[in-house]
């Protein structure tokens, strides 16, 4: 990828954010027509559509002479830089809401720093995305409040936090090239941003009538077991990317040939 918007580090950061959006969208789209209510089907498919559009916004900004399919569709798992949190398969609605909450809280913070940044073209895009992401976060918060209204809801939500907090540890664990330049890129060190994120997450969980273990919370703030930001993904991402590349497509489709 050639230098196009300042530095390689900027491009690497934006690519990671784009991959987050792309992978998150694909997972949300798995909820189309199987959500708890028709209203929620509508919202989840709308979020999936937003995220796929946001990812395109970044990919197109970065693509230069590559096609959208080459950069967005056909990169292999080890080339992807999304957080392992968003690649996690979520078929329990409690998992969906917890990922929605943890990821969109982080994303909102990252976008806000980009909006305040010096690079105008990036700030403009970040701002466009942010206006929609705010609704995504509200969606998560509304559901957290609703789901704790029954014992089963509290139980499932607690399990979801236990399972997913450790997988959110890589949200701000970018490669050294990016981290070293955080002052120029986003104005503050990523560690500080992570602390802000952790405080919000901790306070939100604290406000809910559920007991999440200290271990799970601590794991969210510790070095990640799998770090998607450096290409260390879980089997979930391989499964997700494999599902994109249907093997019975005619050979001249962009998504064909991935398995070759």
């Amino acid at each position: 990828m050639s230098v196009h918007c300042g530095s390689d580090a900027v491009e690497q950061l934006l690519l990671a954010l784009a991959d987050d959006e792309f992978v998150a969208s694909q997972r949300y789209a798995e909820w189309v027509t199987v959500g708890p209510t028709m209203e929620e089907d509508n919202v989840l498919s709308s979020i999936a559509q937003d995220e796929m559009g946001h990812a395109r916004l970044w990919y197109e900004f970065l693509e230069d002479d590559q096609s959208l399919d080459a950069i967005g569709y056909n990169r292999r798992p080890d080339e992807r830089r999304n957080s392992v949190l968003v690649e996690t398969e979520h078929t329990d609605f409690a998992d969906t809401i917890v990922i929605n909450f943890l990821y969109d809280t982080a994303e909102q913070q990252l976008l806000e720093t980009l909006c305040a940044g010096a690079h105008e073209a990036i700030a403009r895009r970040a701002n466009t995305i942010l206006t929609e992401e705010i609704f995504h976060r509200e969606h998560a918060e509304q559901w957290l409040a609703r789901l704790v209204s029954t014992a089963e809801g509290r139980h499932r939500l607690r399990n979801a936090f236990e399972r997913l907090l450790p997988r959110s540890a890589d949200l701000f664990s970018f490669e050294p090239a990016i981290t070293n330049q955080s002052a120029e890129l986003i104005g503050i060190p990523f560690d500080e941003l992570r602390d802000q994120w952790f405080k919000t997450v901790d306070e939100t969980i604290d406000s809910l009538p559920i007991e999440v273990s200290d271990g799970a919370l601590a794991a969210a703030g510790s070095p990640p077991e799998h770090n998607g930001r450096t290409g260390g993904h879980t089997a979930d991402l391989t499964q997700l990317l494999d599902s994109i590349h249907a093997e019975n497509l005619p050979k001249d489709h962009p998504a064909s040939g991935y398995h070759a």
Partner: protein
Amino acid sequence: MHIEENTLSIEDRLANEEIIELGDPLTDEYRDLLCGIIQFTANSEFMGAFTEREWIPRAPSYQRKLALIAKNQDEIGHAQMQYQLAENLGRDREEMLTSLLAGNTGFGNAFHYPADEWIDIGLLAWMLDGAAMQLQHSLMDTSYGPYARIMRRVCREEEFHIRHGEHIIREYATGSRAKRERLQAGVDRWWPRAVMFFGLSDDQSEKSKRMVELGIKPKSNDELRQQYFDTYVPKLRKYDIEIPDENFYYDDAAEKWQYTAPDWEEFNTIVSGNGPKTQQRLDRRRTAFEDTAWVREAMVAYNEDEKASRFTNSGSINTIN
């Protein structure tokens, strides 16, 4: 003047070319037939999205994936609006959904078949949504005002879906030999289903006749089918696609298209819940419904808590009583 109008029977009001509105007195027959077609079109939107969802992960390019998600989001929205319309007429949402899942209310014949190839998704959007569009377009003139207004919005969005389908068709029609062959094979599969979509001929369908008389269905099954041929035959020819019916031609004397009578036995088997994919899709949806029951229970509990706390917060009500 207004009061006098309301005392007229529905037939008289229709003869005066009046539009029926929410809250007007309805006969049981009118309400039942109206709710029947609304549930059919709502179910079809929903099951259409349900059929296409399998291809969202596998869509063969980024732009196609984005278009397919957008399309499905629209369809869910259309279904939701139409179920709401039936709710306003006294139907219960949960009952409508369970009756769909139990196979007691129908949905478009196309969504009972497999969509194993990407070209099936293209043809569903172009040829089958195109068939549904003839019906939807005619419903913009239905005698029930709220339904007509929703159909105006639905048709506006469906235009985009059909265009998305046509892009796929054009890609195949102008593509490699392998693609052109897959396209023709796809049309061979879907053409008879599109012809059947409109239902039995008018002389065989008492219900359809009655719906036309009550202005619920402004056009008859056969009229819509002929209109579909008028629109799609030139399109198919433009893309060099053969119509897989050797008895198909325009009869100048009769001023209509002649075609091989559809296999109504197959049609009845399919729409009564015995299509190749009917039960598998309904099963999947039933599982989803059961798996998410706890979410709906939490919603109910939350709404009750909210109501209770509103009541306590406005405590004066208690003291007055």
